[in-house]
């Protein structure tokens, strides 16, 4: 069973600690949900797993492990795209505005050693997989010509085009309307089922967790306060942070779940 883990992650901005001793493990074929209120350090944890923290932040502790083996910094960098894919919220800002979608795919696949023509075919195939009926038009478009929901699915396809074992999804459904959310989540589900990838799914929306997650970790104030399987979390939440989250969620959406 292939695993990707981060252990003992500590991040601070200047003197303020933002993430304290966080350890998570993602397994192939399983979805690990990461929930918590905004500002809890979830996004930072995701970025740290790929060594992509912005220069203003200091990582004072923590290691990335693959299949139990500690990785050095250059090895972590080698994971990007090839072993671990990344999907973020507000996808529009993640695309280069001057370059077509097709070019985004071409350059990603070129990094994988794939020639232009083969890359185009692979890209079209992936776009079909995430639910686009007309991949050709999408490939020829620029980011500003596509809607947020479409860009989120394109981003998913891009993250997966190098056949990674794992996917880090940071709030992939935030900012999207419900119909599009459903589409994106369905695509994610299919990806997990079809490719057996391991997903770290960060979200503050518990219904997403309920639908997709096998295990859940709860983060508050930069720490993991609870971690168990999804069913257990909903039935018997242990930490009051989790309980608070559940209360708020049900207050908003009612008891009907799954």
């Amino acid at each position, binding site marked *: 069973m292939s695993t990707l883990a981060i252990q003992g992650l500590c991040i601070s901005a200047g003197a303020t600690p933002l993430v304290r001793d966080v350890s998570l493990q993602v397994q192939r074929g399983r979805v690990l949900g990461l929930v918590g209120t905004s500002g809890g350090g979830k996004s930072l944890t995701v970025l740290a797993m790929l060594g*992509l923290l912005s220069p203003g932040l200091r990582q004072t502790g923590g290691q990335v492990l693959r299949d139990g083996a500690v990785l050095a910094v250059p090895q972590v960098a080698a994971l*990007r795209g090839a072993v671990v894919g*990344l999907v*973020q919220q507000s996808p529009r800002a993640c695309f*280069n505005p*001057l370059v077509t979608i097709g070019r985004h795919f071409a350059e990603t696949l070129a*990094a994988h050693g794939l020639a232009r023509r083969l890359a185009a075919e692979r890209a079209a195939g992936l776009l079909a997989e995430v639910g686009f009926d007309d991949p050709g038009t999408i490939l020829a478009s620029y980011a*500003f010509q596509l809607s947020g929901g479409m860009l989120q699915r394109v981003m998913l396809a891009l993250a997966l085009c190098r056949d990674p074992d794992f996917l880090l999804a940071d709030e992939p459904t935030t900012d999207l309307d419900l119909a599009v959310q459903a589409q994106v989540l369905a695509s994610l589900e299919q990806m997990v089922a079809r490719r057996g990838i391991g997903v770290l799914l960060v979200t503050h929306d518990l219904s997403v967790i309920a639908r997709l997650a096998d295990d859940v970790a709860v983060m508050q104030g930069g720490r993991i306060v609870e971690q168990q399987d999804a069913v257990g979390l909903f039935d018997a939440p242990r930490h009051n942070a989790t309980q608070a989250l559940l209360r708020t969620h049900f207050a908003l959406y009612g008891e009907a779940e799954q």
Partner: protein
Amino acid sequence: MLGFAVRRLLTLVPLLLIVSLVFFLMLRLGRGDPALDYLRLSQLPPTDAAVALARQQLGLDQPLAAQYLNWLSGAVRLDLGRSWSTGRPVMEEVLHFLPASLQLAGAALLLVMLVGLPLGLLAALYRDRWPDHLTRAIAFLGVSLPNFWLGFLLVLLFSVQLGWLPAMGRDGPASIIMPAVATATMSGCVTLRLMRSSVLGVLGERHLVFARARGLPRRTILGRHVVLNAMIPPLTALGLHVGELLGGAMVVEMVFAWPGLGRYALLAITNRDFPVLQGFVLVMTLVFVLCNLVVDLAYAWVDPRIRFGTRAA
């Protein structure tokens, strides 16, 4: 792209008209009597009869509107009248001197892009380290230098002291180096600073994070994602610089005895040669506006949002 170019060209026509009209009025309503200037340049004695005859020949007794329309109808047919001092067609003389000025301004523009942009990138990538401090100090000095003085300095160093480059004239590729450097320095330094801040801005953008997350090699990220995006503000600004470069070239021409439009225009001013002045401004404005259009086209070619007429959110 073609549609874009045509649309821009169409908006330039009214602009040229207004410009030429305003200048025409300034000329005619300014000090002095054009008829007297004409006689002086033709070396004819300014007797009352001669003045009256000149006025009639030059159409100065007609209402201003008619005079302007006369000139305009000629200008549209590419006839800008004849110089009062040499008697030769203004268009012919301008076309004779224009290439040298364009060549100098063009060489300067190349220098601005080939030196200013990379140095700005360098300064941004090595932010707050010595390459950054050094280039910024040089840039700060560079925007404060008078271009003609820099020209003299270069001549002193490279011609008089070292004897490497010719001090004046336009023959051989070596003779354009110093004039081009003198002309380009100010704009090059402004471009450097602009590129630096532009690159710094792009480096903080999220599409870079995603590019890195996809595992793209450094070279691709730097080239396609950083430089391409960062070049847009300096490219837009280049449109403004074209005017400065054309003007600066004319001053530098005086230092290096470069046979361009600069000296031609200066003589016309001293002589108060009205047809030359009117034609000169028209041609220069046209050249400047066309250069701006080329820059805009380059900008549109790079940024698809401009081409499609939308602005990204």
